[in-house]
């Protein structure tokens, strides 16, 4: 595209072109994940399969953060509350009810919706920084309660969670088998991403964009913003809880640390680094940060310092994040041809 100066008119690439670039980057993510799986399986690896699965699971948490931060305009600083809740409920279900993945997910979905509703009714009353602080406070309170509850294993958490086997008619996936569980989680995240991207083109999704842009005016167009924000909050709680539900299947244990601020904060960082409001950016961010932590961690024990510095640099130079930077670049490339 030529550098043309147009008066009073910024070059706005069509919304469709932007969408298709983000969609293409989504396909690219899953293609790369499958490529990784093929290489890792050929090498008979387990460690990196588990690490990649963990990155996808925390990517699910980041997706829930992006729904609130990138689309609805609410910054959740305590989203790990729902992630940890899902992890504990899943662990309890697998241990004491039955080692069944569908059962664990169903129990987490129902209880996660209820907890999300209660959390939402408290947090949605506030806006801006107050919402962020209430979300942070709720997670602090619940994580401290879990930390001090002996029945939940207190600071040790719950250990010895059995890994369920998922039978899908013709084939069965053993979640204890690292490559199988990776593929299962990858498929789950693909479905979740497809659902979220579709949702943003429905009337409900567009209301969320409108709330982020100008909540005040939306009320005068016949909609009650509060209801839409609550729905988004509950949906995000469910996504976080379902992602958390996968954690004990991967690691065989859960601990109160899953609800700590470290986890909530990392999820926000994953979203910002990956590209706020793009959804697939959350998965990219999580993969990138997990890889960085693993690589930098093998050189120094102080990897948090290095990653923190990298985060600051990336926010300064790429404030729109990886996908927020790559998608427009792709569009320009396409329109040049």
């Amino acid at each position, binding site marked *: 595209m030529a550098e043309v100066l147009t008066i*009073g*008119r*910024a070059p*706005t690439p*069509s*919304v469709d072109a932007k969408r298709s670039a983000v969609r293409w980057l989504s396909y690219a993510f899953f293609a790369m994940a499958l490529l990784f799986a093929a290489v890792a399986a050929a090498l008979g690896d387990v460690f990196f399969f588990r690490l990649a699965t963990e990155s996808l699971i925390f990517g699910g948490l980041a997706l829930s953060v992006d729904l609130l931060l990138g689309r609805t305009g609410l910054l959740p600083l305590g989203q790990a509350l729902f992630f940890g809740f899902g992890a504990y409920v899943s662990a309890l279900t697998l241990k004491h009810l039955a080692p069944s993945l569908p059962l664990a997910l169903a129990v987490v979905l129902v209880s996660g919706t209820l907890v999300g509703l209660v959390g939402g009714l408290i947090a949605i009353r506030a806006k801006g920084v107050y919402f962020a602080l209430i979300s942070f406070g709720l997670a602090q309170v619940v994580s401290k309660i879990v930390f001090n509850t002996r029945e939940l294993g207190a600071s040790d958490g719950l250990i010895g969670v059995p890994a369920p086997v998922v039978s899908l008619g013709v084939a069965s996936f053993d979640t204890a088998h690292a490559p199988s569980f990776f593929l299962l989680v990858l498929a789950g995240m693909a479905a979740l991403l497809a659902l979220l991207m*579709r*949702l943003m*083109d*429905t*009337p*409900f999704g*567009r*209301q969320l*964009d*409108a709330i982020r*842009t*100008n909540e*005040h*005016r*939306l*009320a*005068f*167009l*016949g*909609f*009650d913003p509060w209801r839409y924000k609550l729905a988004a909050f509950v949906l995000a709680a469910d996504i976080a809880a379902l992602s958390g539900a996968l954690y004990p299947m991967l690691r065989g244990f859960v601990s109160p640390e899953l609800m700590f601020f470290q986890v909530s904060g990392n999820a926000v960082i994953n979203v910002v680094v990956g590209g706020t409001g793009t959804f697939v950016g959350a998965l990219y961010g999580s993969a990138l940060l997990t890889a960085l932590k693993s690589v930098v961690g093998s050189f120094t024990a102080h990897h948090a310092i290095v990653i923190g510095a990298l985060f600051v640099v990336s926010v300064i130079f790429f404030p729109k994040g990886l996908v927020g930077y790559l998608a427009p670049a792709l569009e320009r490339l396409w329109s040049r041809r």
Partner: protein
Amino acid sequence: MKPTTDDAILKVRGLTVRFGSLVAVDGVGFDAQRGHITAVIGPNGAGKSSLFNLISGAFRPSAGQVLLEGRDVTGASPNRMLAAGLSRSFQITNLFFELPVRENLRLAAQSVEGGRGLLRHVSASRAAQRRVDELIERFALHARADELAGFLSHGEQRRLEIAVALAARPRLLLLDEPTQGMSHADTQDTAALIRSLVDDGLSILLVEHDVDLVMDLSDHVVVMHQGAKLAEGRPEAVRADPAVQAAYFGEVQEPAHA
């Protein structure tokens, strides 16, 4: 001039709002007739905007009543006001600046669409799409339809502001200084547009600074002063009222050219 028949779409009775010790609107009452343009004028700080906020549901009144088509809607939330048939525009342009013009209108038109499926694509809302196309045509925004609202010129934004307020097909439209900051030519265009809306059967309640425009455009004028109603009547009667002249026209005496 239209004959005055008593068919009030809006009845305001003793409307009052206090902010602490300040009485911003003090027992204001008037009727707005169906199919008419009713204007509220008054000097700065007279309480016009507060009155508008009370009628449109932005503020909850301390006392008084708002009746829309005979229904008591006093203190209803803005979204309920819209459902009852009342919509408003804003003095300070209040749009979704980061969204395209078309999307601004589609959001506004969406509430006319019944039964929404949870995962249905927005483009499936035919009635809303048709409404958007109609409005783009009527407000001459086709050249800018895919532009972000924030990139429009001031005049275009003011037009879009009215179009957005109109999208859900209200029966009573409240316009808060629609020509604010417009050039003389744009003001004339907007006046013509407002007249054409009334010709289509819409009722309009208007707050306006431009006294000449109000006198030219409206069927009925309500004058506010220090939070209370000072006078009301036909434009020429209000203009001749000595109390109004003292309180209002006296302050902004312009070279006689009208």
